[in-house]
Protein backbone atom coordinates (compact mmCIF):
# COMPACT_ATOMS: atom_id res chain seq x y z
CA UNK A 1 0.00 0.00 0.00
CA UNK A 2 1.31 3.46 -0.94
CA UNK A 3 2.14 5.79 1.95
CA UNK A 4 2.89 8.68 -0.36
CA UNK A 5 0.73 9.52 -3.35
CA UNK A 6 0.63 12.44 -5.74
CA UNK A 7 -2.22 12.68 -8.24
CA UNK A 8 -2.01 15.07 -11.15
CA UNK A 9 -0.08 17.62 -9.14
CA UNK A 10 0.68 20.99 -10.69
CA UNK A 11 2.59 23.94 -9.29
CA UNK A 12 2.61 27.39 -10.81
CA UNK A 13 4.74 30.32 -9.68
CA UNK A 14 4.06 33.89 -10.60
CA UNK A 15 7.12 35.75 -11.87
CA UNK A 16 6.09 39.35 -12.46
CA UNK A 17 3.18 39.18 -14.88
CA UNK A 18 4.05 35.70 -16.07
CA UNK A 19 2.92 32.42 -14.59
CA UNK A 20 5.57 29.72 -14.72
CA UNK A 21 4.36 26.11 -14.51
CA UNK A 22 7.02 24.15 -12.68
CA UNK A 23 5.03 20.93 -12.29
CA UNK A 24 2.55 19.88 -14.95
CA UNK A 25 0.37 17.07 -13.69
CA UNK A 26 2.75 14.82 -11.79
CA UNK A 27 1.44 11.55 -10.37
CA UNK A 28 3.42 9.00 -8.41
CA UNK A 29 3.14 6.62 -5.49
CA UNK A 30 5.75 5.29 -3.06
CA UNK A 31 5.16 2.28 -0.83
CA UNK A 32 6.60 1.27 2.53
CA UNK A 33 9.82 -0.69 2.16
CA UNK A 34 10.49 0.82 -1.23
CA UNK A 35 13.40 2.97 -2.37
CA UNK A 36 12.56 5.30 -5.24
CA UNK A 37 15.08 7.45 -7.08
CA UNK A 38 14.01 10.77 -8.58
CA UNK A 39 16.36 12.15 -11.16
CA UNK A 40 16.27 15.17 -13.39
CA UNK A 41 18.30 18.13 -14.59
CA UNK A 42 18.34 21.50 -12.85
CA UNK A 43 15.04 23.35 -13.27
CA UNK A 44 13.14 20.14 -14.04
CA UNK A 45 10.91 20.59 -10.97
CA UNK A 46 12.29 17.81 -8.79
CA UNK A 47 12.98 20.06 -5.81
CA UNK A 48 9.51 21.59 -6.08
CA UNK A 49 8.02 18.10 -6.18
CA UNK A 50 10.09 17.15 -3.11
CA UNK A 51 8.81 20.27 -1.25
CA UNK A 52 5.20 19.38 -2.09
CA UNK A 53 5.61 15.72 -1.12
CA UNK A 54 7.36 16.79 2.10
CA UNK A 55 4.67 19.26 3.17
CA UNK A 56 6.84 22.32 2.65
CA UNK A 57 4.70 23.62 -0.20
CA UNK A 58 1.12 23.09 -1.30
CA UNK A 59 0.31 22.22 -4.95
CA UNK A 60 -1.59 24.62 -7.22
CA UNK A 61 -3.85 21.73 -8.14
CA UNK A 62 -3.98 17.98 -7.74
CA UNK A 63 -3.99 15.82 -4.64
CA UNK A 64 -1.27 14.73 -2.24
CA UNK A 65 -2.09 11.84 0.06
CA UNK A 66 0.26 11.01 2.92
CA UNK A 67 -0.37 7.85 4.92
CA UNK A 68 -3.92 7.75 3.59
CA UNK A 69 -4.75 11.35 4.50
CA UNK A 70 -5.18 13.97 1.86
CA UNK A 71 -3.24 17.18 2.46
CA UNK A 72 -5.64 20.11 2.24
CA UNK A 73 -3.87 22.71 0.04
CA UNK A 74 -5.88 25.54 1.61
CA UNK A 75 -4.62 24.71 5.13
CA UNK A 76 -0.94 25.63 5.09
CA UNK A 77 -1.08 25.83 8.90
CA UNK A 78 -1.50 22.03 8.94
CA UNK A 79 1.74 21.39 7.05
CA UNK A 80 3.96 21.38 10.16
CA UNK A 81 1.76 18.63 11.60
CA UNK A 82 2.08 16.61 8.39
CA UNK A 83 5.87 16.94 8.54
CA UNK A 84 5.91 16.13 12.23
CA UNK A 85 3.80 13.01 11.83
CA UNK A 86 4.98 11.42 8.61
CA UNK A 87 8.06 12.97 7.03
CA UNK A 88 11.76 12.72 7.72
CA UNK A 89 14.22 14.77 5.70
CA UNK A 90 17.85 14.05 4.87
CA UNK A 91 19.56 17.09 3.36
CA UNK A 92 22.52 17.51 1.06
CA UNK A 93 24.25 19.72 3.64
CA UNK A 94 23.11 17.56 6.59
CA UNK A 95 21.74 20.60 8.48
CA UNK A 96 22.48 19.28 11.94
CA UNK A 97 22.46 21.63 14.92
CA UNK A 98 26.19 22.29 15.45
CA UNK A 99 25.71 23.11 19.14
CA UNK A 100 24.18 19.70 19.83
CA UNK A 101 25.78 16.27 20.07
CA UNK A 102 24.83 13.51 17.65
CA UNK A 103 22.43 12.05 20.21
CA UNK A 104 20.92 15.43 21.04
CA UNK A 105 20.27 16.15 17.36
CA UNK A 106 18.16 13.00 17.12
CA UNK A 107 16.59 13.49 20.54
CA UNK A 108 15.58 17.05 19.72
CA UNK A 109 13.73 15.85 16.60
CA UNK A 110 11.95 13.32 18.81
CA UNK A 111 11.07 16.12 21.27
CA UNK A 112 9.55 18.13 18.45
CA UNK A 113 7.54 15.07 17.45
CA UNK A 114 6.21 14.72 20.99
CA UNK A 115 8.56 12.05 22.39
CA UNK A 116 10.25 13.29 25.56
CA UNK A 117 12.30 12.24 28.58
CA UNK A 118 13.97 8.83 28.89
CA UNK A 119 11.87 7.42 26.03
CA UNK A 120 13.36 10.03 23.68
CA UNK A 121 16.88 9.30 24.91
CA UNK A 122 16.45 5.54 24.44
CA UNK A 123 14.93 5.98 20.98
CA UNK A 124 17.72 8.38 19.93
CA UNK A 125 20.34 5.81 21.00
CA UNK A 126 18.49 3.06 19.14
CA UNK A 127 18.35 5.15 15.95
CA UNK A 128 22.05 6.00 16.20
CA UNK A 129 22.74 2.27 16.51
CA UNK A 130 20.65 1.68 13.37
CA UNK A 131 22.90 4.06 11.43
CA UNK A 132 26.08 2.72 13.12
CA UNK A 133 26.77 5.94 15.02
CA UNK A 134 26.23 4.77 18.59
CA UNK A 135 29.91 5.15 19.45
CA UNK A 136 29.90 8.79 18.28
CA UNK A 137 26.70 9.83 20.02
CA UNK A 138 28.38 12.20 22.48
CA UNK A 139 30.35 14.11 19.86
CA UNK A 140 29.15 17.52 18.84
CA UNK A 141 27.96 17.40 15.27
CA UNK A 142 30.54 19.98 14.20
CA UNK A 143 33.25 17.46 15.12
CA UNK A 144 31.86 14.70 12.89
CA UNK A 145 33.01 13.89 9.36
CA UNK A 146 30.70 14.42 6.39
CA UNK A 147 29.66 10.75 6.24
CA UNK A 148 29.05 10.66 9.98
CA UNK A 149 26.97 13.82 9.79
CA UNK A 150 24.81 12.30 7.08
CA UNK A 151 24.28 9.17 9.16
CA UNK A 152 23.16 11.29 12.11
CA UNK A 153 20.92 13.31 9.78
CA UNK A 154 19.36 10.05 8.57
CA UNK A 155 18.85 8.89 12.17
CA UNK A 156 17.11 12.22 12.80
CA UNK A 157 14.95 11.69 9.71
CA UNK A 158 13.88 8.34 11.14
CA UNK A 159 12.86 9.92 14.45
CA UNK A 160 9.24 9.65 15.47
CA UNK A 161 8.40 6.71 13.23
CA UNK A 162 8.27 8.89 10.10
CA UNK A 163 6.84 6.62 7.37
CA UNK A 164 8.47 8.59 4.56
CA UNK A 165 12.11 9.58 4.25
CA UNK A 166 12.79 12.25 1.65
CA UNK A 167 16.47 12.64 0.82
CA UNK A 168 17.75 15.58 -1.19
CA UNK A 169 21.12 14.83 -2.82
CA UNK A 170 22.26 12.88 0.25
CA UNK A 171 25.56 11.87 -1.29
CA UNK A 172 26.50 15.16 -2.94
CA UNK A 173 28.58 16.48 -0.04
CA UNK A 174 30.50 13.31 0.76
CA UNK A 175 33.03 11.21 -1.10
CA UNK A 176 32.07 8.35 -3.38
CA UNK A 177 32.84 5.49 -0.97
CA UNK A 178 30.91 7.09 1.88
CA UNK A 179 28.13 7.86 -0.60
CA UNK A 180 27.77 4.17 -1.38
CA UNK A 181 27.59 3.37 2.33
CA UNK A 182 24.88 5.99 2.82
CA UNK A 183 22.84 4.64 -0.08
CA UNK A 184 23.17 1.10 1.28
CA UNK A 185 21.95 2.46 4.59
CA UNK A 186 18.82 3.85 2.91
CA UNK A 187 18.12 0.45 1.38
CA UNK A 188 18.60 -1.28 4.72
CA UNK A 189 16.30 1.22 6.45
CA UNK A 190 13.60 0.78 3.83
CA UNK A 191 13.72 -2.98 4.32
CA UNK A 192 14.38 -3.30 8.07
CA UNK A 193 12.41 -0.28 9.30
CA UNK A 194 9.71 -0.55 6.61
CA UNK A 195 9.97 3.08 5.58
CA UNK A 196 9.31 4.58 2.15
CA UNK A 197 12.44 6.30 0.82
CA UNK A 198 12.48 8.83 -2.01
CA UNK A 199 15.94 9.98 -3.03
CA UNK A 200 16.41 13.02 -5.24
CA UNK A 201 19.88 12.80 -6.71
CA UNK A 202 22.19 13.24 -9.65
CA UNK A 203 24.30 10.37 -8.32
CA UNK A 204 24.22 7.47 -10.78
CA UNK A 205 24.74 5.03 -7.91
CA UNK A 206 21.17 5.76 -6.80
CA UNK A 207 19.91 4.03 -9.96
CA UNK A 208 21.69 0.88 -8.89
CA UNK A 209 20.23 0.66 -5.39
CA UNK A 210 16.70 2.06 -5.99
CA UNK A 211 13.77 -0.28 -6.54
CA UNK A 212 12.43 2.20 -9.07
CA UNK A 213 13.86 5.23 -10.78
CA UNK A 214 11.74 8.13 -11.95
CA UNK A 215 12.92 10.74 -14.39
CA UNK A 216 11.50 14.24 -14.34
CA UNK A 217 11.88 16.77 -17.17
CA UNK A 218 10.21 20.15 -17.59
CA UNK A 219 7.75 19.45 -14.80
CA UNK A 220 6.59 16.08 -16.16
CA UNK A 221 7.54 12.55 -15.15
CA UNK A 222 8.97 10.44 -17.95
CA UNK A 223 8.11 6.83 -18.63
Amino acid sequence: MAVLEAHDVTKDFREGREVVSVLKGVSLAVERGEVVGLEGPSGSGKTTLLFILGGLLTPSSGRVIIEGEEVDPSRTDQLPDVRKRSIGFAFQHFNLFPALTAAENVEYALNIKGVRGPAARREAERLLEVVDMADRRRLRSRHLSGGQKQRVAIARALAGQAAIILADEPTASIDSQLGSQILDLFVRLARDENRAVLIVSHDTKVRAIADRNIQIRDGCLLG
Partner: protein
Amino acid sequence: MVHLATKILLDDKTRFLTTVSGVGFSVMLVIVQVGIFLGMLENASIAIERLDADIWVTARNTPNIDFANTFPELYIQRVRSAPGVLRADNLIVWFVPVALPSGAKEATIVYAMEDFPRWRFPWNIAEGDPQDLRRGRYVFIDDSAEKRFGRFAVGEYREFLGLRLKIIGRTREARSFTTNPIAFLDYRVAQALAPLDLHNRTTYILVKLAPGADQEAVRTEIQRRLPHNDVRTKAEWAARSRNYWIENTGLGLSMYMTVFLGCLVGVVVVAQTSYTATMDHFKEFAIVKAIGGNNADIYRIIAEQATIAAVVGFLVGTALAYAVRPLMARMDLKMIIPEELIIDAFLGALALCLAASLISFRKIAGLDPAVVFRS
Protein backbone atom coordinates in the same frame (compact mmCIF):
# COMPACT_ATOMS: atom_id res chain seq x y z
CA MET B 1 14.34 17.11 26.81
CA VAL B 2 17.03 18.79 24.74
CA HIS B 3 17.31 22.52 25.54
CA LEU B 4 18.26 23.74 22.10
CA ALA B 5 17.86 27.37 23.21
CA THR B 6 20.44 27.03 26.00
CA LYS B 7 22.82 25.04 23.83
CA ILE B 8 22.71 27.61 21.01
CA LEU B 9 23.03 30.48 23.48
CA LEU B 10 26.03 29.04 25.30
CA ASP B 11 27.65 27.84 22.10
CA ASP B 12 28.68 31.40 21.28
CA LYS B 13 30.15 32.54 24.57
CA THR B 14 31.32 35.94 23.35
CA ARG B 15 27.85 36.87 22.19
CA PHE B 16 26.35 35.48 25.40
CA LEU B 17 28.74 37.60 27.48
CA THR B 18 27.85 40.67 25.42
CA THR B 19 24.15 40.12 25.99
CA VAL B 20 24.57 39.43 29.69
CA SER B 21 26.85 42.46 30.06
CA GLY B 22 24.22 44.66 28.43
CA VAL B 23 21.46 43.42 30.69
CA GLY B 24 23.76 43.47 33.73
CA PHE B 25 24.89 47.03 33.08
CA SER B 26 21.30 48.10 32.61
CA VAL B 27 20.15 46.41 35.83
CA MET B 28 23.10 47.86 37.76
CA LEU B 29 22.41 51.34 36.44
CA VAL B 30 18.78 51.17 37.49
CA ILE B 31 19.46 49.69 40.94
CA VAL B 32 22.32 52.11 41.71
CA GLN B 33 20.42 55.17 40.48
CA VAL B 34 17.18 54.27 42.24
CA GLY B 35 19.15 53.18 45.33
CA ILE B 36 20.94 56.53 45.54
CA PHE B 37 17.67 58.33 44.94
CA LEU B 38 16.02 56.36 47.76
CA GLY B 39 19.01 57.13 49.98
CA MET B 40 18.63 60.85 49.29
CA LEU B 41 14.89 60.66 49.87
CA GLU B 42 15.48 58.91 53.17
CA ASN B 43 17.68 61.85 54.17
CA ALA B 44 14.80 64.14 53.26
CA SER B 45 12.62 62.63 55.94
CA ILE B 46 14.97 60.79 58.29
CA ALA B 47 14.57 63.35 61.11
CA ILE B 48 10.79 63.12 60.86
CA GLU B 49 10.95 59.32 60.97
CA ARG B 50 13.33 59.24 63.93
CA LEU B 51 11.76 61.92 66.11
CA ASP B 52 9.31 60.33 68.54
CA ALA B 53 6.41 62.58 67.45
CA ASP B 54 3.04 61.38 66.14
CA ILE B 55 1.81 64.74 64.85
CA TRP B 56 3.67 67.76 63.47
CA VAL B 57 2.35 71.31 63.51
CA THR B 58 4.03 73.44 60.84
CA ALA B 59 3.64 76.93 59.47
CA ARG B 60 1.11 76.96 56.65
CA ASN B 61 2.39 75.49 53.40
CA THR B 62 5.81 74.56 54.72
CA PRO B 63 7.11 72.43 51.83
CA ASN B 64 9.61 70.22 53.67
CA ILE B 65 11.35 69.93 57.00
CA ASP B 66 14.45 71.88 55.94
CA PHE B 67 12.61 74.91 54.50
CA ALA B 68 10.85 75.89 57.70
CA ASN B 69 8.78 79.01 58.42
CA THR B 70 8.09 80.50 61.80
CA PHE B 71 4.99 81.06 63.90
CA PRO B 72 4.45 82.20 67.52
CA GLU B 73 5.93 79.77 70.00
CA LEU B 74 3.06 80.29 72.44
CA TYR B 75 0.82 78.28 70.15
CA ILE B 76 2.29 75.39 72.06
CA GLN B 77 -0.15 76.09 74.90
CA ARG B 78 -3.13 75.51 72.64
CA VAL B 79 -1.66 72.20 71.57
CA ARG B 80 -0.69 70.98 75.04
CA SER B 81 -4.21 71.58 76.32
CA ALA B 82 -5.84 69.58 73.53
CA PRO B 83 -7.40 66.29 74.66
CA GLY B 84 -5.34 63.25 73.73
CA VAL B 85 -1.99 65.08 73.73
CA LEU B 86 0.55 63.44 76.03
CA ARG B 87 3.22 66.05 75.45
CA ALA B 88 4.12 68.76 72.97
CA ASP B 89 7.32 70.76 72.44
CA ASN B 90 8.64 73.39 70.10
CA LEU B 91 11.29 72.51 67.55
CA ILE B 92 13.34 74.97 65.57
CA VAL B 93 14.90 73.89 62.27
CA TRP B 94 16.93 76.72 60.75
CA PHE B 95 19.76 77.32 58.30
CA VAL B 96 22.73 78.95 60.05
CA PRO B 97 26.12 79.86 58.57
CA VAL B 98 29.12 78.46 60.41
CA ALA B 99 32.56 80.05 60.29
CA LEU B 100 35.21 77.41 59.75
CA PRO B 101 38.81 77.56 61.03
CA SER B 102 39.87 77.87 57.39
CA GLY B 103 38.06 81.20 57.17
CA ALA B 104 35.35 79.78 54.92
CA LYS B 105 31.68 79.73 55.80
CA GLU B 106 29.33 76.80 55.37
CA ALA B 107 25.61 76.60 55.99
CA THR B 108 24.40 74.10 58.54
CA ILE B 109 20.89 73.08 59.54
CA VAL B 110 20.36 73.40 63.27
CA TYR B 111 17.77 71.38 65.18
CA ALA B 112 16.98 73.12 68.43
CA MET B 113 14.78 71.84 71.29
CA GLU B 114 14.35 72.26 75.03
CA ASP B 115 14.65 68.60 75.85
CA PHE B 116 16.23 66.29 73.26
CA PRO B 117 16.16 63.00 75.22
CA ARG B 118 12.39 63.31 75.71
CA TRP B 119 12.00 62.94 71.94
CA ARG B 120 14.76 60.32 71.57
CA PHE B 121 16.59 62.77 69.38
CA PRO B 122 19.24 62.64 67.97
CA TRP B 123 18.84 58.91 67.56
CA ASN B 124 22.40 57.82 66.91
CA ILE B 125 24.89 59.40 69.32
CA ALA B 126 28.58 58.75 68.80
CA GLU B 127 29.84 60.87 71.70
CA GLY B 128 28.37 63.10 74.43
CA ASP B 129 25.04 63.42 76.27
CA PRO B 130 22.33 65.56 74.59
CA GLN B 131 20.97 66.45 78.04
CA ASP B 132 24.05 68.69 78.39
CA LEU B 133 22.87 70.88 75.50
CA ARG B 134 20.32 72.55 77.80
CA ARG B 135 20.83 76.26 78.30
CA GLY B 136 24.45 76.23 77.32
CA ARG B 137 26.40 77.49 74.36
CA TYR B 138 26.97 73.96 73.26
CA VAL B 139 26.45 72.03 70.09
CA PHE B 140 26.35 68.45 68.81
CA ILE B 141 27.52 68.03 65.21
CA ASP B 142 26.95 65.04 62.97
CA ASP B 143 30.01 63.13 61.78
CA SER B 144 28.94 63.63 58.17
CA ALA B 145 29.85 67.32 58.58
CA GLU B 146 33.54 66.45 58.39
CA LYS B 147 33.37 66.50 54.59
CA ARG B 148 32.24 70.14 54.65
CA PHE B 149 33.64 71.41 57.98
CA GLY B 150 36.89 69.51 58.01
CA ARG B 151 37.91 67.40 60.99
CA PHE B 152 36.48 68.43 64.34
CA ALA B 153 36.51 67.03 67.84
CA VAL B 154 34.58 67.30 71.08
CA GLY B 155 35.95 70.23 73.08
CA GLU B 156 36.60 72.41 70.08
CA TYR B 157 34.63 75.57 69.26
CA ARG B 158 32.85 76.63 66.09
CA GLU B 159 31.32 80.02 65.38
CA PHE B 160 27.59 79.89 64.53
CA LEU B 161 26.42 83.30 63.26
CA GLY B 162 29.06 85.01 65.34
CA LEU B 163 28.36 83.00 68.50
CA ARG B 164 31.08 80.64 69.68
CA LEU B 165 29.62 77.23 70.53
CA LYS B 166 31.53 74.41 72.16
CA ILE B 167 31.23 71.02 70.51
CA ILE B 168 30.16 68.62 73.26
CA GLY B 169 28.98 65.67 71.20
CA ARG B 170 28.88 63.93 67.87
CA THR B 171 26.07 62.09 66.13
CA ARG B 172 25.78 59.71 63.19
CA GLU B 173 23.25 59.31 60.36
CA ALA B 174 21.75 62.79 60.81
CA ARG B 175 21.62 63.96 57.21
CA SER B 176 19.56 66.40 55.25
CA PHE B 177 18.45 66.12 51.66
CA THR B 178 20.38 69.28 50.86
CA THR B 179 23.55 67.62 52.21
CA ASN B 180 24.02 70.53 54.62
CA PRO B 181 25.50 69.22 57.87
CA ILE B 182 23.17 68.97 60.84
CA ALA B 183 23.87 70.40 64.29
CA PHE B 184 21.84 70.12 67.50
CA LEU B 185 21.63 72.89 70.07
CA ASP B 186 19.47 74.37 72.78
CA TYR B 187 16.19 76.01 71.80
CA ARG B 188 16.91 79.38 73.42
CA VAL B 189 20.44 79.44 72.04
CA ALA B 190 19.03 78.92 68.54
CA GLN B 191 16.62 81.82 69.06
CA ALA B 192 19.54 83.98 70.22
CA LEU B 193 21.41 83.18 67.01
CA ALA B 194 18.72 84.70 64.78
CA PRO B 195 16.61 87.00 66.99
CA LEU B 196 15.06 88.84 64.07
CA ASP B 197 13.50 85.62 62.77
CA LEU B 198 13.24 83.47 65.83
CA HIS B 199 12.58 85.69 68.86
CA ASN B 200 9.50 84.16 70.57
CA ARG B 201 8.93 82.09 67.47
CA THR B 202 9.29 78.45 66.56
CA THR B 203 9.15 76.47 63.32
CA TYR B 204 7.44 73.25 64.44
CA ILE B 205 5.43 71.85 67.30
CA LEU B 206 5.95 68.17 67.97
CA VAL B 207 3.05 66.23 69.44
CA LYS B 208 3.13 62.88 71.24
CA LEU B 209 -0.27 61.26 71.60
CA ALA B 210 -1.52 59.85 74.88
CA PRO B 211 -1.90 56.06 74.85
CA GLY B 212 -5.18 55.11 73.21
CA ALA B 213 -5.78 58.58 71.78
CA ASP B 214 -7.42 58.79 68.35
CA GLN B 215 -4.80 60.38 66.12
CA GLU B 216 -7.30 61.77 63.63
CA ALA B 217 -9.47 63.27 66.36
CA VAL B 218 -6.46 64.91 68.02
CA ARG B 219 -5.23 66.25 64.72
CA THR B 220 -8.64 67.70 63.90
CA GLU B 221 -8.82 69.37 67.29
CA ILE B 222 -5.33 70.90 66.96
CA GLN B 223 -6.18 72.09 63.46
CA ARG B 224 -9.34 73.70 64.86
CA ARG B 225 -7.28 75.48 67.49
CA LEU B 226 -4.55 76.55 65.05
CA PRO B 227 -6.46 77.34 61.86
CA HIS B 228 -3.52 79.19 60.28
CA ASN B 229 -1.12 76.28 60.64
CA ASP B 230 -0.87 72.87 58.98
CA VAL B 231 -1.24 69.81 61.17
CA ARG B 232 0.05 66.55 59.77
CA THR B 233 0.67 63.02 60.93
CA LYS B 234 4.24 61.78 60.92
CA ALA B 235 3.64 59.70 57.75
CA GLU B 236 1.99 62.58 55.89
CA TRP B 237 4.72 65.02 56.83
CA ALA B 238 7.49 62.60 55.87
CA ALA B 239 5.80 61.94 52.50
CA ARG B 240 5.34 65.67 51.88
CA SER B 241 9.00 66.36 52.66
CA ARG B 242 10.11 63.62 50.27
CA ASN B 243 7.66 64.50 47.51
CA TYR B 244 8.82 68.10 47.53
CA TRP B 245 12.19 67.05 46.16
CA ILE B 246 10.67 64.66 43.65
CA GLU B 247 8.04 67.04 42.31
CA ASN B 248 9.63 70.46 42.66
CA THR B 249 13.17 69.80 41.57
CA GLY B 250 14.60 68.06 38.52
CA LEU B 251 15.67 65.19 40.72
CA GLY B 252 12.61 63.02 40.17
CA LEU B 253 12.74 63.57 36.44
CA SER B 254 16.47 62.92 36.42
CA MET B 255 15.93 59.65 38.24
CA TYR B 256 13.16 58.57 35.85
CA MET B 257 15.34 59.55 32.89
CA THR B 258 18.24 57.47 34.16
CA VAL B 259 15.97 54.50 34.78
CA PHE B 260 14.51 54.96 31.30
CA LEU B 261 17.96 55.19 29.73
CA GLY B 262 19.13 52.18 31.70
CA CYS B 263 16.18 50.19 30.41
CA LEU B 264 16.75 51.49 26.91
CA VAL B 265 20.39 50.40 26.97
CA GLY B 266 19.32 46.95 28.13
CA VAL B 267 16.59 46.62 25.51
CA VAL B 268 18.81 47.84 22.69
CA VAL B 269 21.66 45.50 23.62
CA VAL B 270 19.38 42.50 24.05
CA ALA B 271 17.35 43.28 20.95
CA GLN B 272 20.47 43.80 18.88
CA THR B 273 22.36 40.72 20.07
CA SER B 274 19.21 38.62 20.00
CA TYR B 275 18.45 39.78 16.46
CA THR B 276 21.94 39.11 15.12
CA ALA B 277 22.02 35.77 16.94
CA THR B 278 18.68 34.87 15.40
CA MET B 279 19.89 35.84 11.95
CA ASP B 280 23.08 33.82 12.45
CA HIS B 281 20.97 30.83 13.41
CA PHE B 282 18.38 31.47 10.73
CA LYS B 283 18.98 28.12 9.11
CA GLU B 284 18.73 26.26 12.39
CA PHE B 285 15.30 27.76 12.97
CA ALA B 286 14.37 26.64 9.47
CA ILE B 287 15.51 23.12 10.38
CA VAL B 288 13.24 23.21 13.43
CA LYS B 289 10.36 24.01 11.09
CA ALA B 290 11.41 21.42 8.49
CA ILE B 291 11.41 18.62 11.07
CA GLY B 292 7.89 19.53 12.16
CA GLY B 293 8.33 22.42 14.58
CA ASN B 294 6.02 25.40 14.36
CA ASN B 295 6.27 29.09 15.29
CA ALA B 296 5.46 28.29 18.91
CA ASP B 297 8.49 25.98 19.11
CA ILE B 298 10.68 28.73 17.68
CA TYR B 299 9.30 31.43 19.95
CA ARG B 300 9.91 29.09 22.88
CA ILE B 301 13.59 28.92 21.87
CA ILE B 302 13.94 32.69 21.47
CA ALA B 303 11.98 33.41 24.66
CA GLU B 304 14.04 30.87 26.60
CA GLN B 305 17.22 32.56 25.42
CA ALA B 306 15.84 35.97 26.41
CA THR B 307 14.87 34.62 29.83
CA ILE B 308 18.34 33.16 30.41
CA ALA B 309 19.92 36.48 29.38
CA ALA B 310 17.54 38.31 31.73
CA VAL B 311 18.20 36.04 34.71
CA VAL B 312 21.98 35.92 34.33
CA GLY B 313 22.13 39.63 33.47
CA PHE B 314 19.99 40.44 36.49
CA LEU B 315 22.28 38.43 38.80
CA VAL B 316 25.37 40.11 37.37
CA GLY B 317 23.79 43.57 37.57
CA THR B 318 22.56 43.07 41.12
CA ALA B 319 25.95 41.76 42.25
CA LEU B 320 27.63 44.80 40.67
CA ALA B 321 25.16 47.16 42.36
CA TYR B 322 25.93 45.64 45.76
CA ALA B 323 29.64 45.82 44.96
CA VAL B 324 29.32 49.52 44.15
CA ARG B 325 27.50 50.33 47.40
CA PRO B 326 30.61 50.60 49.64
CA LEU B 327 32.25 52.83 47.02
CA MET B 328 29.21 55.10 47.08
CA ALA B 329 29.28 55.17 50.88
CA ARG B 330 32.89 56.31 50.70
CA MET B 331 31.69 59.21 48.57
CA ASP B 332 29.08 59.96 51.23
CA LEU B 333 26.25 58.72 49.02
CA LYS B 334 23.76 56.53 50.79
CA MET B 335 22.36 53.74 48.61
CA ILE B 336 19.22 51.97 49.76
CA ILE B 337 18.34 48.72 47.99
CA PRO B 338 14.99 47.48 49.27
CA GLU B 339 13.63 44.04 48.41
CA GLU B 340 10.93 45.62 46.22
CA LEU B 341 13.58 47.30 44.07
CA ILE B 342 15.32 43.96 43.47
CA ILE B 343 12.02 42.28 42.57
CA ASP B 344 11.05 45.15 40.25
CA ALA B 345 14.49 45.11 38.61
CA PHE B 346 14.16 41.37 37.97
CA LEU B 347 10.64 41.63 36.56
CA GLY B 348 11.69 44.64 34.49
CA ALA B 349 14.74 42.85 33.07
CA LEU B 350 12.63 39.80 32.23
CA ALA B 351 9.85 41.82 30.60
CA LEU B 352 12.28 43.93 28.61
CA CYS B 353 14.29 40.93 27.40
CA LEU B 354 11.13 39.14 26.30
CA ALA B 355 9.88 42.30 24.58
CA ALA B 356 13.25 42.66 22.83
CA SER B 357 13.06 39.05 21.67
CA LEU B 358 9.77 39.80 19.87
CA ILE B 359 11.74 41.71 17.25
CA SER B 360 13.69 38.56 16.43
CA PHE B 361 10.57 36.47 16.47
CA ARG B 362 8.81 38.73 13.99
CA LYS B 363 11.66 38.06 11.58
CA ILE B 364 11.46 34.31 12.11
CA ALA B 365 7.67 33.94 12.11
CA GLY B 366 7.44 33.99 8.31
CA LEU B 367 10.54 31.85 7.79
CA ASP B 368 10.22 29.37 4.94
CA PRO B 369 11.59 25.99 6.07
CA ALA B 370 12.51 25.25 2.45
CA VAL B 371 15.63 27.42 2.94
CA VAL B 372 17.32 24.38 4.47
CA PHE B 373 17.48 22.83 1.00
CA ARG B 374 19.60 25.69 -0.24
CA SER B 375 23.29 25.74 0.55
